[in-house]
């Protein structure tokens, strides 16, 4: 278990409540995949001391966390080359390495750095990837995640999702009536958590805009649910939907201009599409049952939502202009809710209730479904933007923590706060 000390420092700025804020997210691989690729990641050369960021360490952690790689422990490395001319291929083949990552960091004079790295095939000596990346002084971790993305893409032919962020809600609870709710954003590896909103009233349902610069969420700060859209960097925010009844479950359209939301001003929750700039609303459903938890297809052609019009909650699909809704979930038990599309639009992930509440994946082409998790109270699933993993909230002790599972169910990890609970993860888009 690794304690993320730099995160403790960054959180310490947030007054005396830093402790109850929960501290760092600690990531623990609970189940890895067999046949993970062996790879050697040599510490990057750095002339000065101390090293500004141990890039090789960050890359190694990223690749380990993916479950697809098995980086060699640093102490076992036979040598520490930083340049291709220093690499003895035989020596790396002898210790069973398929690939080798080497590099160096140099100061660029303007207070920033130049990070140079190469990915080598240990059998042929061929350079599979090589980049020079200028990095601002405070952006070396991001650079390391970008290097992880390049390695992942080069060797697995799938985009990586290391240089991404997650949003989530933390709760520090004192008693039934007194809690502190925080909307936080952290790097996908749990580092650099920032509180972007803090409230004594519940915060819910963070949802990323496709550009990764804005979050929509639900806040009870006016003693009733209302939907806000907040710019992540400036903190500027706009109340988009409020009024009598429920105003909840925001989901950005792929165009980033509209939100699908739930409103119940007529006494019953229905799905609406709201234009963020004008506030203009289009009603999509008019059923007397509960309709909520809308999510857009990646191409914007459809919206799925939860409805209990057939009795228990099931997933339905409707055109973004409205019209007839069609049921999507069949033969999956009597509780299916909060569905969202995979990035390729081929499957839906959802909460499936039966003897417990698990995360289930439904293949939209074949209609086959399976449970990816086996705990009792799993909820709020969210796809990584490369489609490789699903992050969700799960029961832990008396509260909840985050967990992630690969789409094939083979890799599992837990992301826990030191204190307090963390819930409703939303995995942000790939950096543009």
């Amino acid at each position, binding site marked *: 278990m690794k304690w993320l000390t730099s995160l403790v420092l960054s959180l310490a700025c947030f007054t005396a409540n830093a402790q109850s804020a929960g501290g760092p997210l600690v990531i623990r691989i609970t189940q890895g995949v067999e046949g993970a690729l062996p790879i050697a990641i040599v510490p990057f050369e750095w002339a000065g001391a101390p090293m500004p960021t141990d890039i090789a360490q960050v890359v190694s952690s990223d690749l380990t966390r993916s479950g697809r790689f098995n980086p060699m422990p640093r102490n076992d490395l036979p040598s520490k080359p930083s340049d291709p001319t220093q690499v003895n291929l035989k020596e790396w083949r002898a210790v069973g390495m398929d690939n080798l990552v080497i590099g160096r960091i140099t100061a660029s004079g303007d207070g920033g750095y130049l990070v140079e790295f190469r990915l080598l095939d240990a059998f042929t000596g061929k350079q599979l990837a090589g980049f020079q990346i200028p990095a601002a002084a405070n952006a070396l971790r991001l650079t390391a995640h970008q290097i992880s993305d390049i390695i992942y893409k080069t060797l697995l032919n799938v985009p990586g999702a290391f240089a991404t962020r997650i949003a989530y809600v933390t709760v520090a609870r004192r008693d039934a009536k007194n809690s502190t709710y925080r909307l936080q954003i952290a790097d996908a590896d749990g580092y650099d958590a920032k509180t972007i909103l803090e409230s004594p009233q519940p915060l819910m349902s963070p949802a990323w805009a496709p550009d990764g610069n804005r979050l929509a969420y639900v806040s009870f700060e006016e003693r009733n649910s209302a939907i806000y859209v907040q710019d992540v960097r400036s903190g500027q925010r706009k109340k988009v939907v409020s009024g009598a009844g429920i105003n*909840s479950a925001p989901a950005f359209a792929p165009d980033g201009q509209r939100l699908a939301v739930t409103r119940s001003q007529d006494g019953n929750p229905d799905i609406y599409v709201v234009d963020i700039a004008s506030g203009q609303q289009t009603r999509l459903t008019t059923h007397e049952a509960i309709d909520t938890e809308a999510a857009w297809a990646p191409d914007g052609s459809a919206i799925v939502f939860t409805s209990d019009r057939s009795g228990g*909650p099931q997933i339905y699909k409707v055109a973004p202009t409205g019209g007839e809704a069609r049921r999507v979930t069949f033969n999956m038990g009597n509780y299916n809710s909060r569905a969202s599309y995979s990035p390729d639009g081929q499957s839906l992930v959802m909460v499936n209730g039966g003897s417990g509440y698990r995360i289930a994946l439904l293949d939209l082409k074949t209609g086959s479904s399976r449970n990816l998790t086996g705990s009792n109270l799993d909820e709020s699933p969210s796809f990584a933007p490369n489609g490789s993993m699903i992050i969700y909230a799960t029961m832990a002790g008396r509260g909840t923590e985050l967990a992630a599972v690969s789409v094939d169910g083979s890799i599992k990890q837990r992301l826990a706060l030191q204190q307090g609970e963390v819930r409703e993860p939303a995995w942000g888009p790939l950096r543009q």
Partner: protein
Amino acid sequence: MTRAILKTTLLLAAVLVATGCSSLNKKPASGAAIENRGLSNGEMSDIDAARSKGAGDGSGAGAAELNDPNSPLAVRVIYFDYDSSDVRADFESVVQAHASFLASHPQTTVTLEGHSDERGSREYNLALGERRALSLRRQLVLLGATAGQVKTVSYGEERPVAEGHDEQSYSQNRRAEIVYQQ
């Protein structure tokens, strides 16, 4: 000038003495029991609160009734069965009492806060919480309250009173709370 200051000082002193006396009234501890009407401290202060609040509109007695721990009005939390928003038979008399109170106190308003247990998805539970609050509202209106007196809000599973992951906790969290507006 000095006379004005003196006047203010005297006035202040009088207020202080008066305040001191009134707080003495509630503490019959020292020897000479003052105005002991055989009520507990809590009840006396309730009556005080009712007096100060309800002066003029005749609702003073009602506020006292509202604060009587032995009145059915003291029950402010209605519990629900799993996946149900029906007001249970064992709460009918409580709901009737609140409806009657609201009917006889048309100026009084309440907010019904609907809640669910933690199982399943949060947004769906928000809707279930609202369904419970609305179900209770319908009952209150049916039994005499006016629609304008009863507001609803749902907190879904966001504000549990019991934190356990078992039926005992769940049954305490599936609830609607009746909150009288001050």
